[in-house]
């Protein structure tokens, strides 16, 4: 089953012809519209005319999350704001979010890509799709929503949370496709089981799960417990949101939609381009984005590219499921969390030492984040209420900056691990 057989199954040579044409266009577009890119090109001694073949992509400079931050909020947009019809945002490494914009054509592209992805996952016009990703600045909810609508499926825009209601609706409305984070899907399964409900009462057939790393073991668990076929979907808001790549029912890697993106794998340290089959950092160039094209964006996700043809008939190259990160970003309940965000909150609130530790654990199936922070010897008063207020203040501020709730635990001074070089700020106890 394909959503767009023409492009998804296009012979690779023909696909490359599409890619080079689009790459030339996008390079020109950013060079002449965005001072940031023009400066970068000039520093690298490259001009749009130098891009003649796909090979030439390696002449282009990389783009990073820091670049987006430096150009906060809209300075990397290539279009006038009057042409931008939607804004989304994800976590930045410190206080300010990473902001992305979409023109009407971008939203159209995104819906197309999500329609392809959801079709890969088993969705058809007669499906009932429950979108349990969060709706809002996060791209998950609305991305899945428009893709499912594009297919013509029945969409239940329930958003995240409220598990009891999710299950009631899933049962009463006859949901056939569930899309959310894999950890939330497991949680739904657990709650359903704990209610002693019969799994055959659910009409679920397919799951399209993403926004956080998961494993083959987790897939088997989800498929067994929910009695579904589950696929992995990949995306990041900087590129477009979910729908950059998705597994087909072969479940052997995620097809990167190459008519819209060029994926590369590079050595995360040297930046050198690596051949197919080698593990490294995934770098993506957008070919059709209007408002915010990205040239060679460093995703910080580790993966590898699989060139061999897939049995499903799609010709697009596959990426291995994400194998880790090159930076210290954590994904907790689908939300990106950087230790540096926690640090900035702790320094801003004050009353504690600048020593902290993030402990991530999975209780049952839900991720829990605990922040341990040292009470300041200098600021300590003997008031219990004062300490409780301090804990509350940090907790509230963290929740507003991170977008997820975290437990704050005040600990004694000099008890958190110190290290000579890079401090260990994170303990991740999750078994994914």
């Amino acid at each position, binding site marked *: 089953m394909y959503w767009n057989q023409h492009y998804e199954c296009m012979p690779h040579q023909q696909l490359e012809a599409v890619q080079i044409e689009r790459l030339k266009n996008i390079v020109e577009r950013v060079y002449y519209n965005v001072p940031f890119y023009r400066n970068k090109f000039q520093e690298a001694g490259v001009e749009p005319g130098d891009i003649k073949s796909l090979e030439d992509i390696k002449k282009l400079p990389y783009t990073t999350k820091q670049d987006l931050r430096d150009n906060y909020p809209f300075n990397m947009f290539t279009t006038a704001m009057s042409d931008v019809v939607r804004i989304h945002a994800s976590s930045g490494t410190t206080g300010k979010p990473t902001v992305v914009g979409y023109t009407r054509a971008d939203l159209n592209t995104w819906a197309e890509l999500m329609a392809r992805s959801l079709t890969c996952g088993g969705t058809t016009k007669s499906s009932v799709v429950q979108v349990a990703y969060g709706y809002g600045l996060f791209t998950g909810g609305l991305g899945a929503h428009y893709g499912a609508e594009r297919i013509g499926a029945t969409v239940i825009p329930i958003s995240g949370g409220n598990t009891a209601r999710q299950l009631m609706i899933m049962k009463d409305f006859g949901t056939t496709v569930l899309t959310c984070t894999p950890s939330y899907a497991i949680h739904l399964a657990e709650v359903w089981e704990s209610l002693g409900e019969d799994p055959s009462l659910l009409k679920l057939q397919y799951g399209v799960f993403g926004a956080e790393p998961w494993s083959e073991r987790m897939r088997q668990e989800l498929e067994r417990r929910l009695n579904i076929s589950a696929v992995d979907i990949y995306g990041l808001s900087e590129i477009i949101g979910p729908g950059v790549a998705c597994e087909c029912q072969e479940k052997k890697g995620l097809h990167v939609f190459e008519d819209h993106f060029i994926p590369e794998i590079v050595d995360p340290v040297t930046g050198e381009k690596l051949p197919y089959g080698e593990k490294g950092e995934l770098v993506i160039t957008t070919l059709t984005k209007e408002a915010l094209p990205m040239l060679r964006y460093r995703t910080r996700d580790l993966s590898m590219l699989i060139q061999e043809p897939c049995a499903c008939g799609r010709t697009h190259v596959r990426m291995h499921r994400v194998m880790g990160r090159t930076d210290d970003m954590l994904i907790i309940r689908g939300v990106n969390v950087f230790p540096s965000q926690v640090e900035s909150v702790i320094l801003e609130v004050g009353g504690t030492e600048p020593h902290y530790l993030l402990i991530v654990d999975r209780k049952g199936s839900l991720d829990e984040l605990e922040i341990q922070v040292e009470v300041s*010897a200098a600021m*300590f008063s*003997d*008031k*219990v209420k004062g*300490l409780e207020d301090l804990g509350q203040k940090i907790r509230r501020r963290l929740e507003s900056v991170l977008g997820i709730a975290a437990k704050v635990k*005040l600990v*004694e001074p*000099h008890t958190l691990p110190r290290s000579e070089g890079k401090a260990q700020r994170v303990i991740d106890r999750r078994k994914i």
Partner: protein
Amino acid sequence: MIKQISLFLENKKGRLANVCQVLGNESINIRALSLADTTDFGVLRLIVNDPDKAYAVLKANNFAVSMTDVLAMEVTDTPGGLAGTLEKLDEAGVNVEYMYAFLGTTSQSALVIIRVENPEIAISVIRQAGINILTGEQVYSL
């Protein structure tokens, strides 16, 4: 006025023993104590024979420690004695933030430690109400 030592303690096995060990090693005697606890942490409050030394020693051992002024007042050591005293404080408009009992006693009375908002003002009010307040010297040497 009495100098009270307050410490931040995590709710962790052995922490209270550590504190007592550190003080014991320096021959500091604990005369009264109270532990206010929450789910994750506690605040230990101590009256010792040598508060300045105790403060320095605990600080040197990396505890979060602070010194607070509290009052030690005599309470008749009979049933209803504390009730009578608290009634007087109430009438005098003194609000008690927290209170705990002293381990030792003077001849006829029990001693309680109280923490009030403005100890300087409270002292005269409490004395006017006919309640005896002990000085630091009296308490440390008990």
